[in-house]
């Protein structure tokens, strides 16, 4: 169930005089069973890229192969229903899309739309709510009475209830407190353990290093790099400036330390790793 982008170009208003090219010659593979992080500064094309994963946008040219489904420009809207049941999308600040009277009703909405019976939808919704650790006590409350972190998780459950194989999350931890952020990273890890392919957009490199196996760096509508986070975060410093990407905080700290004259043997990517290196433990490695 890997995803392959083959020579994908995308323009808004393609074929008109106002055509605005956004994505240029995208060739990437998003591996199965892994967490792939898509990073890049605002306006680099990340969101446009992920909207191709369930056919919200169609490539102007090129194709995207999602398991046995081939998405091209010519595909009909009707043919996309099956794909949308398999690719679950959680947009930024999904709590803004909550609407039902109770948490349970809200989560049941999507499975009912995908043709589940009411009973089936309820079972699926309960499973999804358990998966994102929303306590049973809250199921019959109004979603609007919940805290920000709880609302975020209820909104995610709405997408997970139809049990998609591929889960796409746009900035899932944005705006949450540290505890809420950690809970979300744990949910990402759980989804991976459950065999899902997870795609994650994030501006927080510390989250990327914490959960991602694979990483795609976007810059000006092109893929600037693809690889494991360790490979990418060990690139030359000048490259990070070029593509306007941050290092994880530990890497940034080590860099500032180097500028003050204390160099470490390699670039740390985690706080614990940086602390160990400063404590001298890494000299024994």
């Amino acid at each position, binding site marked *: 169930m890997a995803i392959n982008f083959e020579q994908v170009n995308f323009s808004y208003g393609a074929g008109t005089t106002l055509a605005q090219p956004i994505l240029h010659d995208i060739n990437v593979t998003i591996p199965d069973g892994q967490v792939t992080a898509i990073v890049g*500064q*605002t*306006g680099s094309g990340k969101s446009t890229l992920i909207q191709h994963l369930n056919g919200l946008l169609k490539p102007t040219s090129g194709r995207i192969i999602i398991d046995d489904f081939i998405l091209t420009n010519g595909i009909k809207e009707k043919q996309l229903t099956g794909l949308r049941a398999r690719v679950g999308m959680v947009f930024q*600040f999904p709590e803004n899309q909550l609407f039902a009277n109770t948490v349970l009703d809200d989560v049941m909405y999507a499975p009912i739309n995908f043709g589940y019976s009411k009973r089936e939808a309820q079972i699926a919704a309960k499973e999804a709510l358990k998966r994102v650790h929303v306590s049973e006590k809250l199921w019959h409350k109004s979603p609007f*009475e919940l*805290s*920000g*972190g709880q609302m975020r998780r209820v909104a995610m459950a709405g997408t997970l209830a139809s049990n998609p194989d591929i889960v796409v999350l746009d900035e899932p931890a*944005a*705006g*949450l*407190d*540290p*505890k*809420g952020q950690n809970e979300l990273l744990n949910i990402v890890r759980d989804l991976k353990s459950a065999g899902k392919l997870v795609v994650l957009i994030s*501006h*927080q490199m510390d989250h990327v290093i914490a959960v991602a196996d694979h990483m795609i760096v976007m810059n000006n509508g092109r893929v600037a790099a693809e690889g494991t986070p360790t490979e990418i975060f060990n690139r030359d410093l000048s490259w990070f400036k070029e593509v*306007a990407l*941050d290092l994880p*905080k530990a890497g940034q*700290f080590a860099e*500032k*330390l180097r500028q*003050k*004259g*204390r160099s470490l043997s390699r670039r740390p990517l985690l*706080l*614990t790793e*940086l*602390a160990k290196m*400063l*404590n*001298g433990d890494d000299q024994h490695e």
Partner: protein
Amino acid sequence: MVKAIEINNLKYSYDEQPLFNDFNLNIEAGQWVALVGHNGSGKSTLAKLILGLLVADEGQIIVFDEQLSIESVHRVRAKIGMVFQNPDNQFVGATVADDVAFGLENTKVDSSDMPQKIDAALTVVGMQDFKDREPHTLSGGQKQRVALASVLALQPKIIILDEATAMLDPDGRMTVMETLQQLKQQFGQNLTLITITHDMDEATLADRVVVINDGRKILDGTPAKVFSQRRVLHDNGLELPFANELAYQLDKKPEDYMDERELIQWLSTLNK
């Protein structure tokens, strides 16, 4: 010592659930206070109470010697500028300059004075070159700086930022925080700043950090004092700023609190 905000014995219940029960807080004029707490701790509710958007059940809120009441609420609000979390929810004008003008129009500023006031406010936040741009073409950080300019144009004595950087990317966050530091430098004692946040790295920039949870004050003091309480912060769903967590994990630690810059300096001279 002039008090900007004085909160005495505040009681407030939300849906019959008591949130604030005998809450007290004094903020001195010219102070930068970071109000921190996890989602749902009551920090945003407190801001709404101060603005009179919510009405307390009991207790007093006094803003520059004026007690908040139905009668005084408009005068109190005129002293306070507020910037909210979502940059897209606070634009009304067709251009950046129009947006700043909107607030001024509401305060009956003479129209001949407006261009100068708009320019001055946009210059403070470094957005003067964008004055004819449509707000939707701006980045999140730029939008928040315009929102800040709209507030500044009204010359408030207090500015409250309610998680104003939570929806921004790292670059946007940085520019907003730099703008705040610059504001503080420029206005000094004439501007009281309250930043509501759960980003501890942001809180380190304030003069004073107040941690609240369940409507109670958990910690209150300088960043040095508050960030020495790692356990208490963890128990309240918060974390230490990066540099302080790092210092905590070092075998050989600095004796006193250090912010990031100081820690880097200290580590670089330790054993080259």
